[in-house]
């Protein structure tokens, strides 16, 4: 391994062009991540034909940097405009935007950036040192385990409903229910489409989310229910967090990095799920779960560390097995094969220099991300100084084009509009959005994997529960559900 690093470092140093590509890749990635509708997948796909003119190593180093940058980029718009630029950043809105609203936009962005870099470096180091055992972990996850994992995330809803447990549960079930509209992922037939073929598209997560967060916020602002003024009364502090403040989050960061890396290795779920599960766990283990959703530092650090750690995780099955761990890595595989490289276990033997150059590239990209991220974020933050009369409509336009560009599917626009209205309503009635989103994201994973597990286990629930990982996760879910309700009950008694 050391020998691999030495030869790769020599290669990188003798080809300084790599560093230029690395810098461009990170910036390209952050910009793509920050723009709604242009995700990391698109960013990588667009660059692939462009890498033909480079050596395979140069191309792959650049694509890796784009991947790293785009995973952070989404949080810039999530924090500043409540408009997640990419799905993996959606969870960051939950606490990032409230913090920015308090006038601490710089603090929120700095936390996101620092957590992303820490998570990203953690994930990459795990990838370098532990790829084979991590790949075994990923393979041990079958449908039963995916189901149990999703359930574990969903049960955190019980701990989130700070004001009213009933409202949290209603929002959670609403999310779970809405996620079932569309094509049944197992039989291929339409569900709850009422004979209308355009409903086959279903309620997909990104348009729903952008409607819920961004559109409803614009509506609320225009309607005067939210603070009419700009964030923090027009003054945007870009004060970055101090090291001490990051150090205070060390446990959250470590937990989220581990969760992110592990979930990142699973081909069936990705950075978005990693962010939400890690957020759920942060709520569950927090001493002040009621602070989540109001702009608490843990609420930003947890999802951001996890989604960037998932980047390293997603590369594990790619290198160890030749299976893409995420949509972005799937696109990268397409690029590799065009260069005549077959990803998989043989890559480490035959193309050592390539693999280790990518590792070095990813580590450097995470560091570069901090430098580039601060500057890009500062420019974005300047937009907040504009009057809302300009910013609001621009957000609506950006959301609309972004949602459409993603799949060129008109129905997604209808979903976005409907969820904008729904979000406004929920905001007015003081329902928490987090449970709804968690239901939308994790519900389909739980449902489809439970059904797969049922088919595989001859519809015997006992067999599913008796699998060690699945059973363990389900037991944990049950315990935390009981504790969550008990905790809520206790605080309820206290306040009365």
């Amino acid at each position, binding site marked *: 391994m050391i020998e691999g690093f030495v030869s790769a470092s020599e290669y990188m140093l003798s080809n300084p062009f790599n560093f230029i590509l690395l810098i461009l890749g990170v910036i390209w990635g952050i910009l793509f991540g920050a723009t709604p509708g242009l995700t990391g*997948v698109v960013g990588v796909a*667009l660059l692939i034909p462009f890498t033909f003119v480079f050596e395979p190593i140069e191309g792959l180093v650049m694509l890796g940097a784009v991947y790293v940058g785009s995973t952070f980029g989404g949080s810039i718009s999530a924090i500043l405009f409540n408009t997640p630029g990419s799905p993996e950043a959606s969870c960051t809105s939950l606490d990032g935007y409230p913090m920015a609203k308090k006038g601490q936009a710089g603090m929120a962005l700095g936390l996101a950036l620092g957590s992303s870099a820490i998570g990203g470096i953690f994930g990459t180091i795990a990838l370098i040192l532990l790829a084979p055992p991590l790949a075994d972990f990923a393979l041990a996850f079958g449908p039963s385990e995916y189901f149990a994992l999703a359930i574990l995330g969903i049960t955190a809803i019980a701990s989130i409903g700070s004001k009213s447990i009933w409202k949290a549960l209603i929002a959670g079930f609403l999310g779970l229910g809405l996620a079932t509209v569309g094509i049944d992922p*197992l039989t291929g*037939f339409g569900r709850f489409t009422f004979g209308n*073929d355009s409903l086959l598209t279903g309620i997909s997560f990104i348009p729903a989310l952008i409607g819920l967060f961004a559109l409803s916020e614009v509506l609320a602002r225009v309607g005067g229910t939210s603070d009419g003024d700009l964030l923090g009364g027009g003054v945007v502090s870009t004060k970055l967090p101090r090291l001490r403040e990051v150090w205070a989050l060390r446990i959250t960061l470590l937990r989220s990095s581990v969760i992110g890396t592990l979930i990142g290795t699973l081909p*069936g779920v990705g950075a978005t799920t990693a962010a939400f599960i890690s957020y759920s766990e942060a709520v569950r283990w927090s001493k002040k779960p009621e602070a989540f959703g109001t702009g608490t530092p843990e609420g930003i650090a947890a999802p951001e560390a996890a989604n960037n750690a998932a980047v390293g995780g997603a590369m594990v099955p790619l290198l160890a097995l030749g299976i893409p761990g995420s949509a972005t890595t799937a696109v990268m*595989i397409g690029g590799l094969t065009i260069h005549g490289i077959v990803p998989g276990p043989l890559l480490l033997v035959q193309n050592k220099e390539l693999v280790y150059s990518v590792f070095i590239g990813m580590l450097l990209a995470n560091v570069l991300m901090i430098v580039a991220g601060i500057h890009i974020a500062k420019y974005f933050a300047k937009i907040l100084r504009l009057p809302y009369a300009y910013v609001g409509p621009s957000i609506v336009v950006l959301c609309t084009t972004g949602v459409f560009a993603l799949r060129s599917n008109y129905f997604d626009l209808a979903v976005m509009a409907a969820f904008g209205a729904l979000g406004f309503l929920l905001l007015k009635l003081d329902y928490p959005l987090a449970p709804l989103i968690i239901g939308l994201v994790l519900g389909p994973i739980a449902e489809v994997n439970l059904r797969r597990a049922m088919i*595989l286990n001859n519809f015997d629930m006992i067999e599913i529960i008796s699998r060690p990982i699945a059973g363990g996760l389900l037991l944990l879910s049950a315990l935390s559900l009981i504790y969550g309700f008990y905790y809520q009950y206790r605080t309820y008694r206290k306040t009365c």
Partner: protein
Amino acid sequence: MSKKVLSLLLVGLLAVFAFALFGCGDDETTTEETETDVTVETTTDDTVTEDTATEDTEAAGGEAAESDYPSRTVEVINQFGPGGGTDLFIRAIGMPMAKITDQSIVGISVTGGGGVPAATEFFNRPTDGYTMMAIGPEEVINHAMGRIDATQFLPVARVQYDQGLFFVGPDSEYESVEQLIEFARENPGDLSIGVTGAAGFDEVLVGLWNLRSEAELEVVPFESSAEAQAAVLGGHTDLMYEEYGPMRALIESGEVTPLVLFSEERLPVLEDVPTALELDIDVTLGRWRGFAFKEGTDQQYVDTMFDVIEEAVEDPLYTSVEEQNMLQYRSELLGPDEFQEFFNSEMETYSDVMEQLDLAQ
């Protein structure tokens, strides 16, 4: 200082971007994809009526089709996202096609809804020769399910014809397809097989296998091929079905073992793997990819486009991609008439199989 660095970087980024635009034709097509399709698509709706109106008067007046066709970008609608087999196919053949015609060939992914929104979008476009659809078995299946009317397609060329295999994972007790068939005939439905997508091509193929071999396998659909691969490697499913290309790394590293091939002849790279046909199980269905216009498009456009495709499939830019994925064995190029014939016979086969499997409407 830092501002200077940043502005330098941005300038560099723009320079690279510009280089990409001018240096390489394909990059132009791909960068346009996300930016222009928004405007293009939103304007289409308003112009549809106008365009069809002029189309009608043209037909009535007997006016000839554009002589310098194609004189602008040709868009290819498809129902798969970036990075998928069809997207890569359009990009790969789009490069030589753009070289030949001097016009961009742009893939437009209209995803979700099982491909129905993609077909709807395509059928709403004018028949002016500037919108094609990349079609495959999914369109035939959607027709059999009553979701789209595939008779409205005007086939231009079938370009790719793939072949798939059944695979077992590293810890499987089955070393040959005969063992597998023997067990499955005695214990129908006990063995599970992971496939990609629900009620799609994979499921029809396994369904046909079940009907013709009586060695019944239980289908477990996964959203992506990667998930199905992980499931068979981890021993969660007994088998999986997939084409050769995506499995190449796993075959070469010995992680999976191919048991049986669905094609007329054995693959030269997998000499030892028998075809189902050799075992008297008549399953040779393969995934194919081709281009179609909409019914009513001028015959001259169809012929011109086919000539372009005929030249493009010989281009090394395309053949190298074809060989990477072992697509060269069965991919005989079919012209408009042959493709129409093939398309019709596929519609019959799929409707028949899906009816027997209770998948059709």
